[in-house]
Structure formats: structure tokens, C-alpha cells
């Protein structure tokens, strides 16, 4: 079985225009994502996790190193990365769910148009011409139903929906072209805790039903533990630890991983005896 993604010594350096300071977002990262694996990429902000995801999506090309998709180079040098990706019909196979649906949904499009958009530009895909308008509408209704939205949601605009519903739309758009690989960038961190569970349930179900390969980026270790079977811990652009989720959570080897795990705020599992808490002190005048 070939790996879906093979990330081979990849570095990504951003050189802001007119500035001498370069930002190293990824530093010599190697990672292999196998079929139907569910990877969680964790780390703090600025650790490079979103950059890694964008590389896997083919939205950027690495500064050095190579990423292979099913054995073939994802973004061959010397070609427009977009075009290379489309030529091989990969566009529909790899889809991404963004963090903030307020930014990832075009405010001037209806939900229906948003979800149908990835079904429009598929003329380059070998053997599959772009879907006709009724076919697109049918597929749109199908995926909207799959994410738990009613059919008449297609006529609404994003601002008419709640945060949770918007993220459902974003997931529906990602699923519309029937991808094999789902990339998700902090899919629940912009949502209220109370909505988070719904979206997590939805993602769990969809990944299981469709047998998707999942690469999920999150700073929330609870989310990763719930959805993923493998974890890569990123710090300052480097992978410091990888392994099966249970192992990482039960026996983290690296101090940074331990620190991350310790930092997660938890509800007291057992009721704390009341004297364990500090009593209020008298006023100091």
C-alpha cells in the first residue's frame, strides 16, 4: 500500500518582501501519511502546523524538500503548482476545511453556490467533464443533507447562519467533490464549546462513513485525541514527536509534549475536597 502523502525533509521559509528577516515556518519536516490514517498535528501558534497543511493541500510549494502524493511529486518545480495539481485531477481528491467559516465562506455567495463551486471547474480532470447544472444541484443537496443542513439552506447567505451551521457548510463544500483526503485546520477552534461537540460528531461520522484519510491541525489536544489515531507534535517548525495517539497521551517522551499535555485545562475529575481550595483571604488595606 502506498502512502498518501510522503513529506520528505521539507522546509518552508517565508521571505517578507522588502525585509531582511526570513521566517522559517517549517524546518526539515518528514512525515508519512498512510491511507485511511487519521493524523493530528499539534503545536502552538507559530509552530508551522498550518503551513504544513497548506503544503499538503498544494496551496504552496515548499522552499526545499519534496512532498509526494501517492508516490508522485505533489507540486513539481517549474510549473504552476495550481495547474500541476489540477492536471492530475487531484483537486477533487484533497479538500481542506478552514478554521474560520466567516473567512472561508464568500459572503456574497449563497450556500448552494459555495458548495457547488468545487463541482464547477473540473474540466481538466481526466475522464470527468464538469457536472451539468442539475447534477450539481443534486450533489449539493446530497452533501448538505450529509452535514445535517436542510435543503433550503442552499438559498441562504452565510451571514444568515449560525457559527456551527457555517462550519457545516464549509465541511459540505469540502465533501462535495467526493474527496479521499480531508485536511482540516482547527475546524472547531472558532466555535463555542457548546457547538464544538456537534461538529466533532459530524467529522467523526463522515470520516468513518467515507473512509477518509484525515490530517487535522489543532492546538486542542482533546480534539486531536478524539478524532485522530496518530499525532505529530510540532515545535518551532520541527516535528519533535510522532506516534499513535494513545501512546503520545499516555507516555509522552519529549518534554515539550509533556508540557503541552500538562497545560490543557481540565475539569477536576473527582470532586475536590473543599479544603483543598484556598479560602478567601481578608482584605489587605
Amino acid at each position: 500500500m502506498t502512502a498518501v502523502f510522503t513529506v520528505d525533509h521539507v522546509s518552508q521559509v517565508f521571505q517578507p518582501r522588502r525585509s531582511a528577516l526570513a521566517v522559517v515556518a517549517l524546518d526539515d519536516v518528514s512525515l508519512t501519511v498512510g491511507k485511511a490514517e487519521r493524523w493530528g498535528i499539534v503545536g502552538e501558534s507559530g509552530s508551522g502546523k498550518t503551513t504544513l497543511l497548506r503544503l499538503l493541500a498544494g496551496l504552496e510549494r515548499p522552499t526545499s524538500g519534496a512532498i509526494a502524493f501517492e508516490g508522485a511529486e505533489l507540486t513539481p518545480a517549474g510549473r504552476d503548482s495550481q495547474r500541476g495539481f489540477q492536471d492530475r485531477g487531484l483537486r477533487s481528491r484533497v479538500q481542506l476545511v478552514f478554521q474560520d467559516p466567516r473567512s472561508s465562506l464568500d459572503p456574497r455567495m449563497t450556500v448552494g453556490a459555495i458548495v457547488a463551486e468545487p463541482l464547477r471547474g473540473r474540466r481538466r480532470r481526466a475522464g470527468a467533464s464538469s457536472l451539468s447544472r442539475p447534477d450539481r444541484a443534486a450533489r449539493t443537496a446530497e452533501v448538505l443533507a450529509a452535514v445535517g443542513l436542510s435543503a433550503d439552506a442552499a438559498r441562504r447567505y452565510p451571514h444568515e447562519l449560525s457559527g456551527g451551521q457555517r462550519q457545516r457548510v464549509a465541511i459540505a463544500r469540502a465533501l462535495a467533490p467526493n474527496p479521499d483526503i480531508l485536511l482540516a485546520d482547527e475546524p472547531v477552534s472558532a466555535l463555542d464549546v457548546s457547538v464544538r461537540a456537534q461538529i466533532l460528531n459530524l467529522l467523526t461520522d463522515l470520516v468513518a462513513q467515507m473512509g477518509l484519510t484525515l490530517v487535522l491541525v489543532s492546538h486542542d489536544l482533546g480534539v486531536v485525541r478524539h478524532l485522530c489515531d496518530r499525532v505529530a507534535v510540532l515545535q518551532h517548525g520541527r516535528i519533535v514527536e510522532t506516534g499513535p495517539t494513545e501512546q503520545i497521551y499516555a507516555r509522552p517522551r519529549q518534554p515539550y509534549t509533556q508540557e503541552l499535555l500538562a497545560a490543557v485545562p481540565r475539569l477536576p475529575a473527582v470532586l475536590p475536597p473543599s479544603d483543598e481550595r484556598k479560602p478567601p483571604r481578608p482584605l489587605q488595606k
Partner: protein
Amino acid sequence: MTAGTEMSGPRGTLPREVPSASQDSVPLLEAKGLNVWFGRHRRQALRDVSFRLAPGQRLGLIGQSGSGKSVTALAVMGLLPDTARTTGSIRFEGRELLGAPERALAALRGRDIAMVFQEPMTALDPTMRVGRQAAEAVRLHASATSRATRRRVIEAFAEVELPDPERVADAFPHELSGGQRQRVLLATALLNRPRLILCDEPTTALDVTVQAHVLDLLDRSLAASGAACLFISHDLAVVARVCQDIMVVFDGAIVETGPVARLLANPSHPYTRGLIAAARLDEAAPGSRLPTVEDFLRGTGS
């Protein structure tokens, strides 16, 4: 803003507190029947909110975004926007704050009541060195030489474990990380040893590890100063980390109040039960179906 209660006393001063009651029976902060409406359409943000906060008590205010948590804190500070209309009563050490003149409130703010905001990235004036901004908190409420003030600021920065506090004091906000800025704001809030600190989601914008440090710091600072705290968050786990008592807001109204332990063990309102279930993500079996708040509101939750 209209006052529910009439002000007495000369302009710019607050009436003295009632001297008869003992420290315990006079709450530090007491809100009664607080209602807040916004804008021309009179959208109601708070409905009949009442609560008490004893000296040194730490009260967590929890609810989803838009439920009226921040509005409560801003109402206490007298910092609601002009479009807000407020009725009810907010008393600090027995003195009515609602409708108090701006000058009297300003004298109170930063000295007796301090606030730490959610967004450290935008809460500091980008054109002024953070040391000077913090120093304003001191010099507004006490006369002090600028040398002494600077010394106090740097001490305060050191207390919140800012590395190299001298250099931080001379930095502009954009030169600091989010965690550093939040420490600066926390240090500024603590400078005058206020009796009440309002924290509006102070760690939501921060990374988990930074959040842990800041919460730890807040915990210790509160313990050291004996200040009371109204801690606002949407995350039950974070609130439980700092507070003894929790108050749950749902759609602008308080649905449940009680000590953390009791609330966790025996929540009475379905919304509270839903929040607790959502916060116990890491106790659920991976991949299992998570109970949602809706389950509880519908009454189908466990």
C-alpha cells in the same frame, strides 16, 4: 446610560459606605436586577441579573459568546457603549455605580476595580511604550515621582514573570508576544492592589501553554493580594482552574450559581449539564459520539 438608583452626594464623589455592617455582610460587589439593552432596537443583552461577590471571592461567569458575559463586566466598569441602556443597581462596597458621574467612576477604575481584557493584541495603545501605559495607572491615582513610578511598574512586570522587565517596559506593544502583552495588562491591573479584578476571557486568545502560565500567575496574584475576581470565560475547565464559585449565563439571564464542586457534581440546569459534558471531551472514548448541549436542552442527555 440611565441610572436605576439616584445618586446622592456632591458631583465627583461617591457617598461613603454604610459603616454599620461588618465586612462579611456587605458584599464587595452586588448587582441587583441588572438589565441592559442595546441600540435602537432595544435588543436586551442582560435580563434581571443579580449576584453578589464577597471580598476575596472568585466568581466565574460562564456562557457562550453573545450570552451577556462581557456586558456584565463592562456594566460594572461603567464602560458600556453609549448605545446601551441600563437599569437596576450595581453596588461596590455599598456605593451605587450605575449613574455615577464619569469622574467618580474613573477614580474607582484602575484603583479599586481593575479589568483585564480578552484581546491583548488590541488592548494596548500601539503608539506608546507599554511601561508608560502601565505607569499611567499609578500616576492617575496617586502622586508619585516618575522614577518611583517606573520602579513600581518594573517590579510589577517582574511579578508577572515578564523576562527582562526593564526592556519590556521600554517596548512598544507590537514588539511583544500575545502572552507578554497579557502579562503587561495583568501587571497593570494589579498595580494599585485593587479589591476587585474583572477578567474578560483573559486567556482565550493565547496558546494552551501560555494560557496555563497566565492562569497560574493570576491564581497566585489573587491569592497574594486578596483581591476578588469576576472571571469570564466560555470554557468551564478554565474557570474551574481559578474560581471557587460559578455563575452560568444563558441568553442574558443567570440560570445557575454555586460552588464549583457542587455545580460539577450536581448541575441543575440542562444547559449547565451540557456545558460540563462538552468540557469533559478528554473523558469520552475517542471516536465515540459526544453529548451536545442540545441533547441536554432537549432533555435527551444522560
